[in-house]
């Protein structure tokens, strides 16, 4: 029965008392909370517009649960840790785990060699490590990092290296290649990846 068919509860002076309608007992009941306060439920509105009571843990704290697939989808790794190149032979990194699981990637590069160093992305679609190219014109995916960048790390994003913004499979690695024989210095490459 709806609440408007029931009689409200009253105090000794026949005045309406603080109360609520309990649909389980089908009657109005005194609102009796802790330390004389009114006992209340917290209700929150869902995205679908439904009001639901909030749950609490045994100690009374509100229960919070992260859901969805975007939690903790951010990572960074040192791809080359101060590698002192001594010739112009390309050097490939180890395979980058889960490269295809991220859609936002940034390279942070510090080249202290006395020659510029090319940085590219290689992939094993053909079975060998091939440098990736982009689009129908086969624009090779590489950037050239200037020499003697002692205190100036360079930030490389998809704006400079389109392959960083795209998702593709197979074994993917970063490749560095000195443009001439370096005599001093080294190169450090860090890769930051996240899902957006």
């Amino acid at each position, binding site marked *: 029965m709806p609440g408007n068919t029931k009689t409200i509860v009253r105090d000794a002076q026949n005045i309406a008392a603080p109360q609520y309608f309990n649909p389980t007992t089908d009657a109005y009941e005194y609102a009796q909370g802790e330390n004389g306060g009114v006992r209340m439920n917290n209700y929150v509105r869902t995205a679908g517009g439904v009001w639901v009571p909030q749950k609490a843990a045994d100690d009374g704290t509100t229960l919070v649960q992260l859901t969805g697939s975007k939690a903790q989808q951010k990572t960074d790794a040192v791809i080359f*840790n101060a590698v002192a190149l001594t010739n112009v032979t390309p050097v490939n990194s180890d395979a980058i785990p889960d490269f295809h699981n991220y859609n936002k990637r940034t390279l942070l590069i*510090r080249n202290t060699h006395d020659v510029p160093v090319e940085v590219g992305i290689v992939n094993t679609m053909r079975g060998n490590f091939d440098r990736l190219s982009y689009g129908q014109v086969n624009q090779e995916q590489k950037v050239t990092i200037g020499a003697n960048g002692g205190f100036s790390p360079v930030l490389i994003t998809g704006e400079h290296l389109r392959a960083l913004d795209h998702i593709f499979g197979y074994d993917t690695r970063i490749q560095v290649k000195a443009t001439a024989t370096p005599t001093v210095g080294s190169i450090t490459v860090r890769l930051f990846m996240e899902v957006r």
Partner: protein
Amino acid sequence: MPEETKQAIVWALQQKVVDPSGNEWPLTLETEQELVDFVRLYFNDNGISYSTFSYDDLLPFFN
């Protein structure tokens, strides 16, 4: 790695880095790229031949 690697590291750790603002700070085992660059400098200055190496190749010589 060359057999002189240990002494190259010891020498490198006695050097100081100076940034473009003139600030100086000592090399440590944690200033990874500076350490590699100074070890390489030691090899060059002492005519020691070496091939491509990285900070990770220096780790066994730290103890």
